[in-house]
């Protein structure tokens, strides 16, 4: 009986793969590669913008509740049709382009950003056997595509020929480049542990269990530190609060996309959120075991359900952080990236190397944890301008 139930669970898990193979059976031979590509890509292109729409509502409601107010609650039941209203609004607004703007570059900037954001989903395994392209250098592909976003930010900021947009673009690019280094370096520890750059291999290596406990890379000292660094860098890469100085709504209005209106603004918004989802999905792939269930007795729940559950949890954490923390100033941002996160990620790599060469057991947990905690404390104390061990005093405004 349990055997047939397990087979049933496996079918539900692989339902999209089986559906795709069944549809491909109806397609003549020469057309099969292109139909296979289309059948792989279209669900991703439908699912993630839908998730974007849901996230906009969740974010506005969530932020509203955290700020002790209702979010949008007029469109539909509890404001759930708000994305439809936003979509109609952005489509029907007039598309204003400044007369002195660089017309072609102004038009191309949101296009390049959306293309780069969608391309990053090609290497993310959404379920068991459900990845669009199993590249041997998948993680490298992801970061290479991520670096194209900075180019589109430059195009947007420059082509508007406005001082606000230029300032915003400069700040945004400086921030994105600074935080790209801790992002990539914190993923190097996972690549070292897995021995491969392929995302499918990294997830498959985390899909085993010892007893009921999973083999996720999060449950190692270098994994925890790497995950935290990766998430902080991901927040900065997507220009989310507390790193949203480039698009601070109260300071430089909207930064590099100030001169965009209507649907192009919606495209920038979409690209930013898609980038946030892609980076979260990469964090899930690298540290949280991808589509693997957290306990061995929960593997009957389909793999894509686990992936989206983890993704929604991370999105909730993003919204929570946005509602809680104030914005960092530009110099505080840059100090944090170059003086704290970068050395800590390099020491994390050393820690992962030490972990690899020590025999398994409590000793290596203690040694690597000590190394990482000590370096974290020393770096953060060192950043406070030589006030090493010092009673905290408060000064109230008078």
């Amino acid at each position, binding site marked *: 009986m349990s055997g047939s139930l397990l087979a049933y669970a496996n079918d539900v898990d692989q339902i999209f793969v089986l559906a795709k193979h069944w549809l491909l059976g109806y397609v003549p031979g020469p057309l099969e590669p292109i139909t296979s590509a289309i059948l792989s890509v279209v669900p991703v292109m439908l699912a993630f913008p839908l998730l974007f729409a849901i996230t906009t509502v969740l974010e506005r409601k969530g932020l509203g509740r955290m700020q002790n107010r209702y979010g949008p609650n007029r469109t539909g039941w509890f404001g759930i049709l708000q994305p439809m209203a936003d979509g109609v609004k952005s489509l029907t607004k007039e598309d204003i382009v400044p007369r002195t703007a660089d017309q072609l570059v102004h038009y191309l900037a949101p296009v390049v950003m959306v293309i780069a954001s969608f391309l990053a989903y090609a290497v993310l395994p959404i379920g068991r056997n459900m990845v669009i392209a199993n590249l*041997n250098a998948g993680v490298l592909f992801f970061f290479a595509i991520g670096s194209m976003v900075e180019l589109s930010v430059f195009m947007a900021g420059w082509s508007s020929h406005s001082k606000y947009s230029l300032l915003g673009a400069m700040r945004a690019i400086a921030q994105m480049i600074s935080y790209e280094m801790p992002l990539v370096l914190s993923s190097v520890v996972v690549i070292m542990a897995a021995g491969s750059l392929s995302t499918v291999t990294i997830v498959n290596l985390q899909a085993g269990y010892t007893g009921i406990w999973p083999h996720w890379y999060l449950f190692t000292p270098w994994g925890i530190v790497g995950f935290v660094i990766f998430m902080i860098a991901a927040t900065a890469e997507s220009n989310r609060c507390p790193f949203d100085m480039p698009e601070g709504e109260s300071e430089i209005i909207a930064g590099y996309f100030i001169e965009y209106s209507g649907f192009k603004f919606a495209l920038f918004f979409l690209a930013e959120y898609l980038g946030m989802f892609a980076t979260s999905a990469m964090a899930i792939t690298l540290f949280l075991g991808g589509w693997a269930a957290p306990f061995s007795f929960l593997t009957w729940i389909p793999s894509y359900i686990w992936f989206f559950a983890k993704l929604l949890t991370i999105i909730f954490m993003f919204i929570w952080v946005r509602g809680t923390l104030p914005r960092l100033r530009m110099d505080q941002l840059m100090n944090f990236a170059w003086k704290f996160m970068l050395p800590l990620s390099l020491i994390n790599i050393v820690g992962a190397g030490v972990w690899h060469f020590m025999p398994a057991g409590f000793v290596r947990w203690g040694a690597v944890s000590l190394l990482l905690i000590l370096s974290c404390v020393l770096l953060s104390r060192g950043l406070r301008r030589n006030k090493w061990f010092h009673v905290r005093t408060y000064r109230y405004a008078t």
Partner: protein
Amino acid sequence: MTISFLLLAAITIIGTAAAMTLKNLVHCVLALTLGLVGLAALYLELGAQFVGFTQILVYVGAVAILAAFAIMMTRSAIPTLSNAESSFRASGSLIAVLVFAVLAWAVYTGTSKQAILLAPPEGSVAQVGSALMHHFVLPLEVIGLLLTAALVGAAIVAMDEPRAKQTRGRQ
């Protein structure tokens, strides 16, 4: 001469040619980026995944952005009309034709009509890594030293002047 190679070669050539001939400097940088992306796609077509993606990561993500910053920080983006364009065009194209002739002759006499059956070299990341760590470890360390020197130099150039000098200047 497959169609994908022809398309990518066309993109690369058009991008780099546009980078040399356009008047607006920002357009030149963007056209150069297009040419570099075409180069990366050519590397990928040859099967060198690591080099191809690193080309995008480094050239498009860093070098093009560096050029963009240089344009943003200075006022060189204002297009200037110069008379030197027409006088350089004749001699420039003559030199370009000569260089192309030399390169074409070298490629044509260096390749054979029959396909040489060698095992295709794998450019996998593991092989690149082990080659860097074993055979090419000295160049790797020298490059590391060079990058450190560049970082220190950039920090020194960008640093504020020390306070003592400023107060002495004020007095």
